[in-house]
């Protein structure tokens, strides 16, 4: 009897020690992984506020001068403006065309509708920016749209629209049809119904799409990198790259502040919107 209780105790002690060790090891590994993910980010947070930033991590000699200098740098500020222009321009095209198409597809049985929808989605996941860069570049060149925003906007909008139509159609399907029916009884035409009934109800969905599009375009490097030539037109994503590849001696005070300014909007949007909408936000296609 005593022998068995002793073994039981011994086993229990063993498992609790093992359990404890496992917890410690688990905590340790999680901390290390967390640190590895944090490591590259620390520079982004500290260097912009350092009077003499270097490539190594160091406790900053706190200052805001780097930002003051950045705001006076014409190239940097213009590129942020260009990014905004491209983001908002694409957003307008995509939201207007996407909402029209999604509404019609939601309310009318166009022959082969579901086939078209899935076909579009399939198309946009196959014809990615990288896989289509050669034909896109060649087509835009022959159309004489190289080095113009028109070219960049059309290519970006074309790539994003299938996902937008897909999400918006889902959204429009969930809008009760009764509102439109009664609006129609009062004599409203289809455009009027769309403008005064559907759009106000669909506002959350449209807002989601608008923000999602701007985030996609804001970080997009490849399309403007290939289609734009003059430095004046470059968005921030391309200028950031130009800053660290083409300048002989990299100006770290400028680059670090610029990197943070350029990243801040998406970080803010993401962490604010993520709180509200949850995972769906980045479930889309990112290339």
């Amino acid at each position, binding site marked *: 009897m005593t022998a068995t209780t002793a073994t039981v105790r011994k086993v229990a002690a063993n498992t609790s020690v093992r359990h404890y060790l496992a917890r410690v090891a688990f905590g340790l590994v999680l901390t290390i992984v967390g640190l590895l993910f944090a490591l590259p980010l620390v520079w982004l947070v500290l260097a912009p506020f350092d009077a003499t930033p270097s490539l190594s991590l160091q406790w900053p000699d706190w200052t805001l001068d780097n930002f003051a200098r950045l705001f006076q740098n014409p190239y940097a500020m213009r590129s942020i403006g260009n990014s905004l222009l491209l983001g908002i321009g694409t957003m307008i095209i995509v939201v207007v065309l996407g909402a029209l198409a999604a509404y*019609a597809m939601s309310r009318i049985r166009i022959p082969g509708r579901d086939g078209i929808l899935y076909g579009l989605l399939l198309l946009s996941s196959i014809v990615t920016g990288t896989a289509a860069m*050669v034909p896109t*570049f060649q087509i835009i060149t022959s159309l004489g749209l190289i080095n113009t925003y028109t070219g960049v906007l059309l290519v970006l909008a074309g790539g994003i629209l299938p996902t937008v139509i897909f999400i918006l159609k889902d959204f429009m399907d969930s809008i009760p049809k009764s509102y439109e029916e009664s609006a129609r009884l009062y004599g409203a035409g289809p455009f009027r119904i769309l403008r005064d009934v559907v759009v106000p109800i669909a506002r959350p969905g449209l807002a989601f799409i608008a923000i999602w599009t701007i985030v996609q375009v804001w970080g997009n490097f490849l399309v403007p990198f290939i289609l734009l030539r003059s430095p004046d037109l470059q968005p921030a994503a391309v200028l*950031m790259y130009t800053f660290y590849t083409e300048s002989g001696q990299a100006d770290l005070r400028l680059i670090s502040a610029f*990197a943070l300014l350029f990243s801040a909007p998406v970080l803010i949007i*993401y962490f604010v919107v993520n709180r509200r909408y949850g995972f769906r936000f*980045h479930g889309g296609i990112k290339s």
Partner: protein
Amino acid sequence: MSTSTTTTPAGSAIAPRRRRADDVAGLGTARAGIFVAPALILIGLFLLFPAIWTIWLGMTDYRLTGLQAASPEFVGLDNYVEALTDPSFWNSLWLTLVFVVASGIVGQTLIGFALAWSVRNIHGWVKALIEGLVLAAWVIPASVASFLWLVLMDRRSGTLNGLLGTDGYAWLIEHPMEAIILFNIWVGTAFSMQLFSSALSAVPPSQIESAKMVGASGWQQLRDVIIPNIKGHILTNTLLITLWTFNTFTPYLVTAGGPNGKTEILSVYIYETAIPGGQLGLGAAISLIMLLINLVIALAYIRVSRGRKKA
């Protein structure tokens, strides 16, 4: 407005199903066509047409400059022969395979799952911090992320050399492939982490409880309860990650394909061939190969998600 809300629920309940008025706004097929057309035309011109145009372009000797730029000639399958007999193409394809398997399928999926698994029962700031860090790496614009890695691995004063005491060690020259693989894991793990987080939260707790009751160890619970429950998510995740990793261009911003083509994955190879290299015809031929690989992955994805819906 108030009348509509009071009358319609009753109306729809009483009225027998009419020839279903899907078209409640009186749009009509013709006007619906007008609504859909602009979007479809834009997609047709700048998404579908480039894909089809690649087939033709890949069979010409189109160049960026010179005689072939003005009047390209039809060369049939010459570009394909040239690509398939060029060792640098095969090298690039091999590097792409290594990159996709190591950074996407193994790295992002395993680390993403491990993170989701680890933080599933933790609450509060530790979870928020870890998830926040992983997510931040994913949302930061690609050109910023790549610069941060150049800073990290800088030869003279990079943080990595400082931490490891390996001053002057050129990581990007000695281990370029490992560098872009780690970089891509860092960038992309957030997607898998979030996907698996939501998958794990959907596993019925009763099944885990009964597994614990019969004394299953953590590993056994994982193998016999969790994995069978989230099999669909694992497949979805793997296929999407494969597609995205295969198509990413971001490693170019870190190593530019170098040194000596050691990190020239297919996306970078196409860019180098077609745009700085000016050989648009050859670049298009390789692009078509890439498009076909994308098609295969996407079709596999569709099959998997259809099968899941039926089940």
